[in-house]
């Protein structure tokens, strides 16, 4: 009994700042303006505006997860061929650590300064006849946001996938070669199958990363709320109609549900991965 006292502060803290907020979202999503049980908030998710925001978010996250995973995996393999502890490796992993974490406002500014209306690339391209400033492509979820999100997805992929690539033992390749296997055979029958669960797992992680991101889009987009985190933000920051505030909670619950499904898949894959790449 006395031993339990030792974890009491931790449990109290996480209850107040983690479990209670989670319950507020879950319960609030099922209550109406008079605190009566209702499914009205959840069915409000079918409103065209909200449904399309969910749709945009899922597509944006899936596309950038795929792009980030492919390019990030290439980069991870390229880096893994460099000397361990060498300057290139250290530079790239630290740089990726920052770029993966530091999305948000900085990233939005960087892209505005580069391909925004007055961006230097925009001005250059104008000289050779390509007009980027003619439309609002940078602020649309199916064009500019994909580009911007990929910028923080690739570094995250490097960070989560590099350990898996490093787990490939040179002996496996030598074994494949001594049995007469070509490079293609090695990748198709040895490295590919071993890396596949990590690759898919990392891609799922990238999906939730993009799906949860709020800051980048908030700093970039000033008109409208094309993706679901911005929709939720809108229900918090503006004066909403009475009884509507719980729709924000329903949207939040919807996000948690999607992330939970993806993270469960991730956990299953993770268990498979550690079987081979036990470190």
């Amino acid at each position, binding site marked *: 009994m006395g031993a339990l006292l030792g974890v009491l502060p931790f449990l109290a803290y996480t209850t107040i700042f983690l479990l209670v907020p989670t319950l507020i979202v879950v319960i609030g999503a099922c209550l109406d303006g008079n605190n009566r049980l209702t499914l009205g908030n959840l069915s409000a998710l079918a409103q065209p505006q909200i449904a399309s925001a969910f749709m945009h978010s899922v597509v944006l996250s899936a596309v950038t997860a795929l792009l980030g995973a492919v390019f990030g995996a290439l980069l991870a393999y390229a880096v893994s061929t460099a000397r361990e502890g060498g300057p290139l490796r250290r530079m790239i992993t630290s740089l990726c650590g920052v770029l993966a974490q530091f999305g948000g406002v900085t990233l939005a500014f960087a892209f505005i300064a580069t391909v925004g209306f007055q961006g230097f690339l925009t001005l250059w391209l104008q000289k050779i006849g390509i007009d980027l400033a003619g439309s609002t492509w940078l602020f649309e979820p199916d064009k500019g946001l994909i580009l911007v999100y990929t910028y923080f997805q690739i570094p995250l992929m490097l960070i989560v996938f590099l350990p898996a690539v490093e787990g490939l033992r040179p002996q496996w390749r030598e074994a494949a070669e001594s049995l007469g296997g070509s490079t293609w055979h090695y990748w198709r029958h040895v490295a590919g199958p071993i890396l596949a669960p990590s690759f898919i797992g990392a891609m799922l992680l990238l999906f939730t990363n993009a799906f949860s991101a709020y800051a980048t889009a908030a700093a970039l987009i000033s008109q409208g709320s094309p993706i679901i985190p911005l929709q939720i933000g809108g229900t918090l920051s503006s004066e909403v109609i009475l009884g509507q505030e719980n729709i924000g909670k329903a949207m939040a619950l919807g996000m948690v549900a999607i*992330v939970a499904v993806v993270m469960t898949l991730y956990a299953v894959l993770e268990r498979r991965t550690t079987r081979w790449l036990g470190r």
Partner: protein
Amino acid sequence: MKLHAARRRKQTIFRRVVVGLLGLFFALPLLGMVEFTTRAPGGGRTLATWATLFDVNVIDADYPELKTGVLASAGLVVLTVTIMLVMLVPTMTWVRLRLPGLRRTVEFVCLLPLTIPAIVLVVGLAPVYAWVAYFLGESSLWLAFAYVVLVLPYAYRALDAGLSAIDVKTLAEAARSLGAGWPTVMWQIILPNVRTAVLSASFLSVALVLGEFTIANLFSRDNLQVAINQLNKRDASLATAAALAALVLAFIVLFAMSFVGAGRRSHPPEEN
């Protein structure tokens, strides 16, 4: 042998092409920021924006929001790291020593924020923060309570790796049998043995807190990123310069951290 040399050459070419092309993609937006912040009004280059950014007196007088944001973020970094360490290190040690049955629960709670996006946490935290404001006032510093939750998964993993690498039980029992009290065990036995893990948990927290925007913005509190975002409406060039400076600072912190991690790895417990 010849095969190896040929493969190594191919790998080198592959590495240069991939790192070169992706490097360009990553460099362009950063270059864009440098270019944008050095534009002179009539064309040409000037460092005036950067001179302003590093001139404490000018910032103090003309851009008070930036000063407030920097100070708030500095305070948040200290408070977040302190709460995180004071809460997690003793709890995790205690659970290993006395309550191994609770280890799964603690792990589950610590990793839970990974499935709860910050924007969702904001929705649920709004009523909680109404109480925080009622009891403690409106200060931006109290955002640290939420930030501890955000860093929980990363800090947990770093500290868990550190505690797994040492024999907590034997160390603690040895100290106890020599008459040490629990505070001494924590402070003089456990902490020095997991200092690398403590450092990496702290560095991760610093990077996360310096970049945090979502919660501060939606609760209308001040921090560095919120200040930079507000400043952008008034002086885009200075805001971009401040954002780039913060990015460089975070890079330096993480680069330093990569050396700390390397120091630990050079003495691996088991290597085959």
